[in-house]
């Protein structure tokens, strides 16, 4: 055969053809662009429009940001430095950073106190957010409220120590009695804490704040982004236990308790937060015993806590409803009573389901803390709209300040929402 083909066919290839490279338009960036940017005429138009839109945004903002001035002391000086060129006047941030971040009238030599509280906050939040950290770190979390209170408000050290003593007494009584019955432990603990606080209230003299190590700072002198953080952290942490109680109450078989919880939750969810803040600022004082004066900060914390508790209760109810019926029945068949079943089986499982959603609610709540500027508290936004924009030096510096506020909130909220998505992946232990 070989000669036949050698003689009859003019040419026979003896080796295989090396593969030629794919056409230029089907590999690399060109193919990617073709598939992802210009796959149809409509998409091509969209792509061009999007590129033009991005160009417009960048052309409008980039030169303005890059020409920014950081070192002047008023808007008029900024304009002199810029000499008619369009540019940002970031000096307002470098000059008023203290007002923007944490201080309304906080004494200047005491700035380290809120800063330190802020740093400790990270140490305290870490073991709650990352469950793989050693559990011993939770001690910092438990101590944090008292330390932070002492650092920020100052005054006599006996107030936080007394508060802590009450909590410790309550915990000791609770752990003694809880073996007998949960209800006895729970109410016994609360009673013990109240007893300690009442006795301590008699012991601490009225003028204890004079001559304290850290000078007392009234709440109305606090402000800036710190106020947003304080409101957010305090209200979320207070509202989680309240929300659990409301969610359990809403699921209860007892009609009276169920209806109290339903009415509370639906009422709070039906009205805007701003009306609740009006309640805090103009109405709540009427409901306190005559003669007592309460801090606006405390009143706002009460109302925002009630607000977020109603939302968190609905999230937790969703978690409880998502739990298979078998878990409840298994708990019953083991002979656990209601408190044991909830504490040992139902709540751990359902909180695992609802925790990422609770984090999202917390982000929403944190954003909503800006509303306190409407009832003339000087949070970050209230500070910008009030003292800074009203001052003669900085009247008219809108974009730098609003952009700064937006950036600050974006970093925090985006960070937390990324955390919540990460946590959701971590907690997804079911193999579906």
């Amino acid at each position: 055969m070989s000669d036949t083909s050698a003689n009859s066919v003019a040419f026979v290839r003896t080796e295989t053809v090396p593969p030629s490279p794919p056409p230029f338009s089907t590999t690399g960036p060109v193919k990617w662009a073709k598939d992802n940017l210009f796959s149809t005429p409509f998409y091509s138009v969209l792509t061009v429009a999007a590129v033009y839109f991005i160009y417009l945004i960048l052309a409008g903002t980039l030169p303005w940001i890059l020409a920014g001035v950081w070192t002047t002391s008023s808007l008029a000086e900024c304009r002199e430095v810029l000499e008619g060129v369009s540019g940002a006047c970031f000096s307002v941030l470098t000059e008023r950073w203290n007002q923007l971040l944490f201080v309304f009238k906080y004494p200047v030599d005491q700035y380290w106190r809120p800063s330190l509280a802020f740093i400790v906050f990270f140490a305290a939040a870490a073991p709650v957010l990352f469950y793989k950290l050693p559990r011993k770190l939770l001690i910092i979390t438990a101590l944090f409220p008292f330390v932070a209170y002492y650092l920020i408000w100052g005054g006599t050290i006996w107030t936080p120590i007394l508060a802590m003593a009450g909590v410790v007494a309550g915990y000791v009584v609770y752990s003694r009695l809880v073996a007998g019955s949960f209800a006895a432990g729970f109410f016994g603990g609360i009673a013990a804490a109240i007893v300690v606080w009442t006795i301590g209230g008699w012991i601490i003299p009225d003028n204890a704040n004079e001559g304290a190590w850290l000078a007392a700072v009234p709440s109305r002198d606090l402000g800036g982004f710190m106020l947003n953080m304080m409101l957010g952290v305090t209200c979320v942490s207070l509202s989680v236990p309240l929300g659990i109680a409301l969610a359990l109450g809403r699921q209860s078989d007892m009609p009276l308790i169920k209806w109290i919880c339903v009415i509370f939750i639906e009422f709070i969810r039906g009205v805007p937060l701003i009306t609740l803040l009006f309640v805090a600022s103009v109405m709540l004082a009427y409901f306190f015993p005559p003669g007592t004066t309460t801090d606006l900060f405390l009143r706002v914390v009460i109302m925002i806590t009630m607000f977020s508790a109603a939302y968190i209760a609905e999230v937790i109810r969703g978690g409880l409803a998502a739990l298979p019926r078998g878990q409840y029945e298994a708990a019953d068949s083991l002979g656990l009573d209601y408190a044991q079943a909830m504490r040992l089986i139902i709540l751990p499982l359902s909180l695992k389901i609802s925790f990422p959603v609770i984090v999202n609610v917390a982000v929403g709540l944190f954003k909503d803390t800006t509303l306190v500027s409407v009832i003339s508290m000087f949070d970050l936004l209230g500070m910008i709209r009030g003292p800074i924009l009203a001052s003669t030096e900085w009247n008219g510096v809108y974009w730098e300040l609003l952009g700064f506020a937006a950036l600050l909130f974006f970093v925090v909220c985006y960070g937390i929402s990324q955390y919540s998505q990460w946590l959701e992946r971590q907690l997804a232990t079911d193999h579906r």
Partner: protein
Amino acid sequence: MTTITDPPQGAFRLSMLLNDTRYRSYTFQFIALVALIAAFAFLGSNLFSNLAAAGLNISYQFLGSPAGYDINQTLVEYTSQSTNARAALVGVLNTMLVAFLACVTATIFGVIAGVLRLSNNWLVSKLMSFYVEIFRNIPVLIWIIIIFTIMIAVLPGPRAFRGDEPEASMVLNAIAFTNRGVYIPAPVWGPGSMVVVITFLLSIMGVFAYRRYATKLLYDTGRLLPMGWPSLAIFFVPTLLVYFIMGMPVGLEYPELKGFNFAGGIKVGGPLIALWFALSIYTGAFIAENVRAGIQAISKGQTEAAGALGLRSGRIMNLVVLPQALRVIIPPLISQYLNITKNSSLAIAVGYADITATLGGITLNQTGRAIECVLLLMLFYLTISLCISAIMNVYNNSVKLKER
């Protein structure tokens, strides 16, 4: 989760109130009732003694007295001599107006962004996720203030439109964007315009009737009538015909620069625009996520099965994917509408006269009737919320999977 045990025999003993699951719940409820009554009595007695000490009482008389302040944007007739109740009504209507406008535009923004985020176009989908993340993670109050600042600080004053070579000009010679608000042409209803309006309404009904007839014909006989162009024709042709036959009775009154300000046309105030736009673009980001989740919730098998049956892609979307996706999308969409209504109370930050700014703002400050005003305010929002929840429940029941 009551534990099921054998009911113990024997007479009732007092200790059974705590130890027997049959009676224990009564004990707990009784304790809760007593605690509730005690709490209300405590708060109520505090309230009355505080009010008595301040020389106040609870009374709604102030609603009938003249309000004494002006409102720049009203839907009904209102002067500063009108009553506080009238001012509250103006506020209610303004709230409804901005909430309605924002719901419509937020839905449009949200659906476009949600669909584009799922598109194969890398750049557009990244741009849309950028939009969603930026707007979801910055408080709506900051957005309202930013857009309001654009309205008052960036847009030109009416003066810029004057002169032979004005610095600013009107869009299409009809719409003027100024820092005092946006001026748009106003319709002028001439004699006979009623006929045009009625024809227009009838032709809308005609479109629906035609589509229903075509569907019925398709199901009964299998004959397919064209849907697109006849609908358009029924929508436009009769109205335009009647419009020209009646001699163009409906005209437009264009805003014109007179003196230092614009006259004529409709003035849409800066606060309304800021609130409307900020609410719709902020809530649109949330709606985009709902839409995306709804479309992604439909399994790919549905699309493929419909394709295997020979349906075209438009019909797959209309007949298979959308009906199922809407079941997922609409409940969160309605709760976003509820959020818009509640967030519209932020109008007070930019001075738009909604119910919070009139009843809860100026009226409250002028009369000092804090408790009455806040209670009325809460009652209004609660009514709206309960109505929207009721609509949502009706909808949820109607689209619930009918399992047999």
